[in-house]
């Protein structure tokens, strides 16, 4: 029967597809190694065994079976870390409530999404997958490694990475919640920046009381077996964990006043781990941020895409770093993440950062902000075998990413880069139209999911006009 014969052929193809990369020991030979934290090493080998960098040196002897990569004349740097990304997610904004601390991107990681491979093709090995900016307190984020090829979201998880959570100040939450009167619901707090602060304070205060109520219950239980536990609240569980210091805050922000406002709120609740995302006016309050120990994760040279971000400067990064603020440069985009090395290089044009300082903005600095600096962000013995190999210095405009390794597994090789690497193919749609295509909407970043959500309300026009991105 014809179909059955066909099936045999197809099954053979399926098996080919199912083959995925297997960790193998690999040595990268004779490269210019940009360690970021330990200077630049010429004509140097890097050996990765069992997924970990085990030796760095010249003329390394390697175990039998080690894969050899000749990197003569090439540059080797730590895998790039994108501290702000929305790739590989099934949903981005639970935009129905100003506080949704209980939701987690961990639940919606999409390992099939082609954006993972594209990011790898730009030398990115780790992404911080964030909730969107619709809510004042959005969901918990997920730090992932670009282990392309698995269909199991758990395989991508950066095991041991600290929990982080998205906050958002300013126009996005006030527009989504405070100025909407359609879709069968009235406007709710916050409609203003004052309201944003009040939403934060309410959430923290409820979280604190919740924590105290459970502590009191636990204490009472010791003497009274009939103690009644407080009402369970997933949202307040997370607020309590933030207060306990178990969740790092990453806050979407633009203006200097709101940035300072958040440090004051956090101080009142003893929260000291904060990274301001976007933070286009952070340079105005750089000393204050440094004093608080706050970090910043910014765009290289992008602003004026809406009113609250009308004012900024491409010197933002350099000013922050010179003031002692640990600063990273992020993409917030499934397109821009492919050339973060260019974005980092702009800090040399605008601010004259040293090579290692510029590279740090896309390696060790985001690693620190995500609490994974012991594992990634530099080329050091004992760190993960997350490596990017470039033709040309990565800070040069002529830089071309050639190979990318995650845990010693080659996830991108420019010399072996077929047209179609999709893991998931729409079995019935029209050819050439599939999820993951780069379209004009990709340049709207985390707006997409807000749009999807708001379509249900019928005031989409309003939202698109006023933009909800970044």
């Amino acid at each position, binding site marked *: 029967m*014809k*179909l059955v014969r*066909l*099936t045999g*052929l*197809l*099954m053979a*193809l*399926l098996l080919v*597809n199912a083959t995925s990369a297997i960790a193998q020991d690999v040595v990268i030979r004779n490269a210019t190694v940009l360690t970021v934290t330990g200077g630049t090493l010429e004509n140097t080998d890097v050996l990765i065994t069992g997924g970990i960098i085990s030796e760095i040196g010249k003329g390394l002897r390697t175990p039998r079976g080690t894969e050899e990569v000749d990197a003569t004349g090439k540059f080797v740097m730590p895998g790039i870390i994108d501290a702000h990304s929305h790739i590989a997610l*099934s*949903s981005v*904004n*639970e935009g*129905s*409530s100003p506080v*949704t601390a*209980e*939701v*987690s*991107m961990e*639940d*919606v990681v*999409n390992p*099939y999404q082609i954006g993972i491979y594209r990011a790898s093709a730009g030398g990115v090995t780790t992404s911080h997958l964030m909730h969107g900016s619709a809510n004042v307190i959005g969901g918990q984020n997920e730090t992932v490694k670009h282990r392309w090829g698995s*269909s*199991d*979201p758990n395989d991508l998880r950066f095991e041991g990475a600290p929990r982080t959570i998205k906050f958002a100040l300013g126009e996005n939450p006030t527009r989504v*919640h405070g100025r909407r009167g359609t879709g*069968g*619901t*009235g406007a*709710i707090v916050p409609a203003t920046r004052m309201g944003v602060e009040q939403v934060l304070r309410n959430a923290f205060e409820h979280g604190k009381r919740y924590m105290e109520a459970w502590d009191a219950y636990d204490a009472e239980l010791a003497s009274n077996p*009939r103690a*009644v*536990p407080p*009402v*369970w*609240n*997933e*949202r307040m569980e997370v607020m309590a964990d933030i207060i306990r210091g178990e969740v790092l805050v990453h806050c979407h922000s633009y203006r200097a006043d709101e940035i300072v406002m958040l440090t004051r709120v956090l101080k009142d609740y003893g929260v000291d781990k904060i990274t301001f995302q976007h933070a286009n006016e952070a340079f105005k309050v750089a000393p204050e941020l440094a004093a608080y120990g706050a970090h910043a994760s910014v765009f290289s040279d992008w602003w004026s895409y809406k009113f609250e971000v009308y004012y900024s400067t491409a010197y933002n990064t350099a000013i922050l770093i010179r003031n002692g603020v640990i600063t990273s440069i992020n993409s917030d985009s499934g397109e821009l993440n492919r050339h973060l090395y260019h974005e980092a290089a702009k800090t040399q044009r605008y601010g004259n950062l040293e090579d290692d300082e510029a590279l740090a903005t896309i390696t060790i600095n985001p690693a620190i902000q995500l609490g994974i600096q012991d594992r990634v962000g530099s080329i050091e013995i004992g760190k993960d075998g997350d490596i990017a190999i470039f033709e040309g210095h990565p800070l040069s405009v002529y830089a071309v990413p050639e190979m990318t390794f995650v845990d010693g597994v080659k996830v991108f090789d420019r010399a*072996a*880069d*077929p*047209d*179609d690497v*999709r893991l*998931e*193919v*729409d*079995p*019935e*749609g*029209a*050819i*050439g139209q599939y999820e993951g295509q780069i379209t004009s909407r990709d340049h709207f970043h985390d707006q997409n*999911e807000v749009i999807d*959500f708001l379509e*249900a*309300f019928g005031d989409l026009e309003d939202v698109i006009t006023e933009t909800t991105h970044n």
Partner: protein
Amino acid sequence: MSEATAIRGARIVQAPGRVIESGTIVIRNGVIESVGRRVDIPYDARIIDGDSLTVYAGFIDALTNVGVPESDDDNPTGSVPDRSNPTFERAGIAPQKDVRMHLDASDKSVASHRQRGFTAALAAPRGRMLPGQTSLVLLTGDKASDMVLPGTRPVLFEFEGAQGVYPGTPMGMMAQFRQLYREADRRMGVQAMYDANPSGLSRPPYDEVHAAFFSVIEGDTPIISFTSDALELRRALSLSDELGFNLMAAGLNQGFDVMDELMSRGIPTIVTLDIPDRPDWAAKADQDSLDQVLASYNDDTRTATFRDIEAEKRNLEAKQLVARTEFLTMPARFAEAGIPFAFTTYGLSVNVMRRNMMEYIANGLSEDDALSALTVDAAAILGLSNVMGSLDAGKMANLVVTDGNYFDKDSKVTIVFVDGNQHLTGDCSGSGCSDKFSWGN
């Protein structure tokens, strides 16, 4: 004693692989009285000449809205004071909703299902994230209560977000599910303490939504998830792992990527009869040209689009054929891996049931395994093995009678017995046999 019916001289498929080429089956009072090669036909039996007929055990649809008319309440929309805090009803959270209160024996879906050979089903209420409690039903009877069977009543869970209110996204639904479950767990503990000795305790809070989770937490009631892609299925599995409830997994589109996880858990598996449409370009192509497309497939193609858009397109088409085949071969791969499964028509028009099943068979599923999914395995998964799933004396008289091998394209279901009630008379030679049914269409 009521009249018996005997189908005489028929091909009787008692169960997959257990066939009597010419035998007799006798039913009485809704029960199979005897079945075998040589059976004494009772003097009072009405006799159906089975000369050209094949008899199978009645089919079972392991998740469906059959018998549940659509209602405006299924998809709650409209104004709420605060969309961040809607009522449970507005958010589509109704685990307490009992499908037995919503059955309508006269709903035309009942006859329509039955005409395809379905005799029993797990009927689900309509709704969104948590539509309610399902029930085993027989596809016969004059009123809803005639239909209802005792047995398992899993609570249905789907990733259907609330419209315009919390929770709207998969991550919101995951969080809301955990919230409901853990608070229900707490309330159960408080209630138990109160029941043992209320002295000095405030009255525990009660609402029917949380209360509906109590038997889930106790392990008496499973959650049945309906998922439509691999990631949804993984989410349901992780909720089950995390919270510890019993899960039945239905739908399972793209479940081929989650086979290991399904196998290691050994959870009840219910496969959708929904299949991807043939893409437009392939629908127009003949088999030879599809073969050509496939033969030219190269997973290492590197074509400059601007130079040879046709070559790139052909390769994309080939890859799409491969992808579609992954869906179509899934039941065959489940069977080969030893994962027993039932079928579901949930969310589908029952009209496509046979056509799509034949696609599964064309893609490697054996007829016996398909029949198992419709009968014996479905009965096992739903806890009905003692009354259904095979043609054995003592079991309920649920029979499907066809005029040839059920899996032959031209065969027709001629009679269906449900609980001994005969539907679709085979004697349609005259006029007025409007329910004569051919499934070829």
